[in-house]
């Protein structure tokens, strides 16, 4: 049932067979999955998709597997919420939140990519999966790997916050806490990946893993009634999610699932780590690496692997990019919570704050449809809000004390 043709270098177009490889032997460019779109067009229709269970595998023809889905059978198909309260607050008219704070099982969009990566790892015959991560990816590989019966090695910097370590440890992976910073963890992982025959989801399985992000884009189009939005705002770390959302929109167009596509794609980053947005604003496609300094840690990649491709998508679609301060991130997390009842992680604050600026600057027209991608749950990054929330009303256990407090409460 697979529709994969093979792997292809994004830089020099050299072709490779389907295998757990990720980099072009010649020019070191990243490898990407290529498909036979003619056969996909024949195999798929809106009706067929609609009849399938509500999870990310309903778009399976566009995903790089050969057999049946094996992991993440309840992942994906998160709500697309019409956000009227928020729209009013920020001067938009038709605003939607793609709410990936509630992806099953670990509450971030990483559950999408890990579902595909682990299914592919099974197809390749691996018994061990691994990743280097400081947060969402570690949680997802730990959890989904447990259910799928893999041995799991999760590499983290030993200095991580206790709450983040606990959220991985509960699944009992082999958690390797390294006496070093995140760069050193990454470097060690690339050496481990060379030596041990394991499926490193974001290294040797990356071409397949990254394709999982497309499901977020497919869902947006289906949930809008088989229509692409006028504007979509996407948070950028490596830039992969942004390029894959655009790829998903184009694939639906190219295979006849939708007829029209005029979406503008916008990139959102924190000012303390904005190499992609800086390139967009400077009108260049040269990504200058930075040393990250932001509370949006899940977006803090100073040397983004897909940054160049993200700038190309923004240029091609006539979108733009915006970067925001830590204070703006916090304010936007609170605004989203107050208006729509959604608690987003710091990356979600980045995306909303950038959207507000893009509307203010006229880059996004307020009378057009806007989709904001919220990619992770705020319960995971609560420390970012410490000292920035309102306080409880402390009272004695008596009605009198309650009514005394009530005098100070306005509404």
């Amino acid at each position, binding site marked *: 049932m697979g529709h994969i043709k093979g792997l292809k270098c994004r830089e020099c177009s050299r072709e490779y067979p389907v295998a757990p490889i990720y980099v072009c032997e010649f020019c*070191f*460019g990243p490898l990407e999955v290529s498909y036979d779109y003619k056969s996909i067009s024949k195999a798929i229709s809106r009706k067929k998709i609609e009849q399938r269970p509500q999870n990310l595998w309903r778009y399976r023809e566009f995903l790089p597997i050969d057999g049946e889905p094996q992991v993440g059978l309840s992942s994906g198909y998160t709500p697309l919420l019409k956000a009227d309260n928020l729209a009013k607050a920020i001067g938009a008219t038709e605003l939607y939140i793609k709410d990936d704070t509630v992806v099953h099982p670990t509450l971030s969009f990483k559950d999408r990519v890990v579902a595909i990566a682990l299914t592919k790892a099974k197809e390749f015959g691996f018994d061990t999966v691994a990743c280097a991560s400081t947060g969402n990816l570690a949680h997802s590989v730990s959890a989904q790997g447990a259910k799928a019966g893999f041995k799991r090695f999760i590499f983290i910097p030993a200095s991580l916050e206790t709450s983040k370590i606990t959220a991985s440890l509960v699944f009992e992976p082999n958690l390797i806490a390294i006496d070093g910073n995140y760069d050193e963890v990454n470097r060690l992982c*690339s050496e481990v990946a060379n030596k041990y025959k394991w499926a490193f989801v974001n*290294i040797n399985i990356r071409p397949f893993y990254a394709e999982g992000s497309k499901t977020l884009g497919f869902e947006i189009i289906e949930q809008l009634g088989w229509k692409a939005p006028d504007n979509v705002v996407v948070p950028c770390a490596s830039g992969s999610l942004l390029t894959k959302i655009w790829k998903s929109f184009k694939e639906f167009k190219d295979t006849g699932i939708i007829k029209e596509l005029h979406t503008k794609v916008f990139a959102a980053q924190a000012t303390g780590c904005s190499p992609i947005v800086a390139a967009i604003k400077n009108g260049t496609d040269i990504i*200058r690496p930075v040393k990250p300094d932001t509370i949006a840690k899940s977006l803090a990649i100073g040397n983004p*692997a897909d940054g160049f491709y993200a700038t190309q998508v923004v240029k091609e679609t006539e979108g733009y990019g915006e970067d925001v301060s830590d204070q703006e991130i916090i304010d936007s997390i609170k605004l989203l919570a107050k208006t729509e009842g959604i608690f987003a992680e710091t990356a979600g604050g980045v995306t909303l704050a950038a959207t507000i600026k893009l509307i203010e600057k006229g880059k996004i027209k307020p009378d057009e449809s806007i989709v904001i991608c919220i990619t992770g749950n705020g319960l995971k990054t609560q420390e970012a809000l410490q000292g920035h929330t309102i306080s409880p009303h402390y009272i004695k256990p008596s009605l009198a004390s309650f009514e005394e407090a009530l005098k100070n409460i306005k509404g």
Partner: protein
Amino acid sequence: MPVKVRIPTPLQRLTQGKEEVESIQGTIIAVVNDLDKNFPGIAERISENGKIRRFVNIYLNDEDIRFMNNEETVAKDGDEISIVPAIAGGAIRRTL
């Protein structure tokens, strides 16, 4: 003392298995072209039209040349250059 250049594993086939080779001093791109004289084919792998390929990181004494003058950054005798293929999704990496 010439410029020392550390060669990553995927390119050691071109350097007869050597992990470290030597070059004349000069701009990064001049170093790359000098390497190519002794190890034909290496320049094509890491550069294109006088520019370092997008997915190759070059460090001069442990600092990314993109924080300096890119291809025009000058390496002097005694300096050490590391050539490191960027690995998709990774953060800044110092050595391999």
